[in-house]
């Protein structure tokens, strides 16, 4: 069983009456709700949290791409992965991912992912989502009717750019390039493992199965609602005679650990409420542009993740309901262990992406929950799926060959409001100019 510590990087300070007073957390949320000075603190806190997760033995650090919203403040997750590549040693950098239809030309993604893979010594997981309708259609103006075709073309170009031995020309419908010649090429050969985050489009099952990619279901509705999606995926895999290897399925789950079940409610209920009622307060008209989902997917009865229907399903739910319905797995280490094991078994899932910084949750609680998970939950789940080979984790360089960043010495710098003395010898270490 593998664990990725997944961050959304939400804005933690939306007003109390956000749901009642504001139209949407995405697309047209007023800019003056964002304070860049607070943002400075948040980005740095959030990077600290991911770095801590690396130190605590998580297998992966997850980041992803969203635009014009307060739900997840990473328009470019590659910037976060770059920061992490220098300050972490062990965990995979799970960039889940880049919405490849939005890049012009899409080899930009092939290049940046190759850079990340090389800098990190082969620790990159390359995620290729279509992206939400809010992000792709409403914020980035992509035509709903053609975005999927554009996405598949971008995928073909990126893979070819990573694997082709020679310079080649690409005559696509959406991208035309006379010379494609990737420098740098990725460290992992033939290319980093590809994970496809899906939100329940039936076409994505086939796409993953046909390319041996890992399918990651990123919903925050929890494992009970996610069962239908996982079953659909395994059904397609079985039909195509693919190995039913749990590591080929990733699943995102909100998890919170405290000393006891009661303490968990006391610590986390308000933050969970913030997450579901403010971070996910998406105007229904932005949730699903006409043509974003195929008619096949709509007819398959896939439920939308955001928007009115999703909000109706959550309406009036309290902590107890969120726990019972599986949206959140929270409680004492024992409770979390038991429920998470049951969840992973019922989904046949080998790559768990856990969301531990939930909504407005402050750093000290994130650290507590992470520590308890790492020490009292994770070790007790490592025995799951030992019979299977994880073919979807990065194949990194040997630890001894990975470059160490030089020590950093800040001079006359304030850290958390306190002046710090200049470190002796800094100039020598850095190479004086």
């Amino acid at each position, binding site marked *: 069983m593998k664990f990725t510590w997944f961050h959304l990087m939400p804005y933690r300070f939306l007003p109390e009456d956000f749901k009642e007073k504001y139209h949407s957390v995405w697309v047209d949320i007023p800019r003056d709700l964002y304070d860049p000075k607070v943002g400075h603190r948040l980005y740095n806190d959030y990077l600290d949290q991911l770095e801590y997760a690396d130190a605590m033995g998580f297998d992966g650090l997850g980041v992803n791409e969203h635009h014009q919203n307060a739900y997840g403040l990473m328009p470019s997750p590659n910037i976060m992965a770059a920061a992490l590549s220098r300050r972490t040693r062990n965990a995979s950098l799970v960039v889940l991912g880049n919405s490849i239809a939005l890049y012009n030309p899409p080899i930009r993604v092939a290049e940046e992912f190759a850079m990340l893979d090389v800098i990190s010594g082969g620790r990159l997981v390359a995620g290729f989502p279509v992206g939400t309708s809010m992000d792709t259609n409403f914020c980035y103006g992509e035509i709903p009717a053609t975005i999927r075709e554009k996405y598949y073309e971008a995928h073909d170009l990126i893979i070819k750019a990573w694997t082709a031995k020679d310079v080649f020309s690409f005559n696509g419908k959406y991208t035309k390039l006379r010379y494609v010649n990737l420098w740098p090429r990725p460290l992992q050969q033939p290319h980093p493992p590809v994970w496809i985050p899906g939100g329940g489009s039936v076409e994505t099952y086939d796409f993953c199965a046909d390319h041996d990619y890992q399918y990651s279901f990123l919903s925050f509705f929890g494992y009970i609602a996610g069962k239908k999606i996982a079953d659909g995926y395994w059904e397609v895999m079985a039909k195509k005679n693919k190995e039913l290897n749990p590591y080929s399925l990733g699943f995102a789950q909100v998890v919170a650990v405290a000393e006891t079940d009661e303490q968990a409610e006391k610590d986390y209920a308000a933050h969970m409420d913030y997450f579901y009622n403010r971070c996910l307060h998406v*105007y229904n*008209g932005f949730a699903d542009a006409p*043509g974003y989902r195929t008619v096949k997917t709509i007819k398959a009865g896939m439920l939308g993740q955001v928007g009115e229907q999703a909000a109706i399903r959550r309406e009036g739910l309290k902590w107890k309901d969120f726990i019972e319905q599986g949206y959140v797995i929270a409680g004492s280490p024992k409770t979390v262990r038991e429920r998470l094991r049951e969840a992973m078994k019922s989904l046949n899932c080998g790559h768990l992406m856990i969301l531990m910084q939930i909504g407005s949750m402050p750093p000290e609680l994130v650290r507590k929950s992470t520590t308890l998970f790492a020490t009292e939950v994770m070790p007790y789940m490592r025995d799951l799926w030992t019979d299977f080979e994880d073919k979807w984790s990065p194949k990194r360089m040997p630890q001894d060959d990975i470059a160490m960043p030089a020590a950093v010495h800040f001079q006359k710098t304030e850290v958390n409001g306190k002046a710090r003395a200049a470190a002796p010898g800094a100039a020598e270490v850095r190479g004086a100019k």
Partner: protein
Amino acid sequence: MNTTQKLLNGKFSLEMQVYGSGEPLLYLHGAGGLMPVEPFLEDLGAHFKVYAPQFPGYGESTGSEHIDDVADAVLFYHELMDELGIPTANLVGHSMGGMIAAEVAAFDVHRARKLVLIAPAGFWIDEVPIPDFFAAQLTEIAGLLFHDPNSPAAQMMTAIPSDFKALETMYVERVKRLATASKFLWPIPDRGLKKRAYRIAAPTLLLWGDDDKLIPPAYAKEFTSRIKNSKLEIIKNAGHMVMYEQQEALVGAIRKFLKG
């Protein structure tokens, strides 16, 4: 009368309403598509032979995968006109259909005998932004499209079926139609008509509801200032869906202009 028209290129099969007899009139519908029966087209059938195809991707009409952009749509109409035996015709277009009718007339100046554009799309004015129709909810649509959102016509067009199966059918059809429309209108309904509108040679009538909240009448001057032989007529007490709110006035204005 409903017919099916298959184009010789094998790419398109079209559901088409045909009414009356006389000089040919090709009708190009808006983003919402045609209703099963269109009374205002029936009325026009008393004076013209009206051809009203559902655009590929609408209703039973197939082949939307062969149309990506304005040029594809224009060539589709050129081929359709040739195969209907009406290489030239009066072109009447509403909203998105008005935008495409203007393009048909601009690409090949011989296609349109006369051109009628009812609240056409095709331009963007920063100071008068067009509301985001694609993001609008069913409950908001009547308010955007109608002068009187409580009128029976408005209520009928935006009714939400209570039966789940009917709701699903309606939803899927709406998604199909608007997905096709997004090729011309998303995210801003400007595909370069401003470069080509000067070419339109046909006498052109612009018709606009005085209370059009979707594409406000301020957009009319984008057309009248570029199309040499053009004039604007405002229709009172009408929103964007002029044909359902002021059917008689609309049909009268079209007839007078085309017969004049």
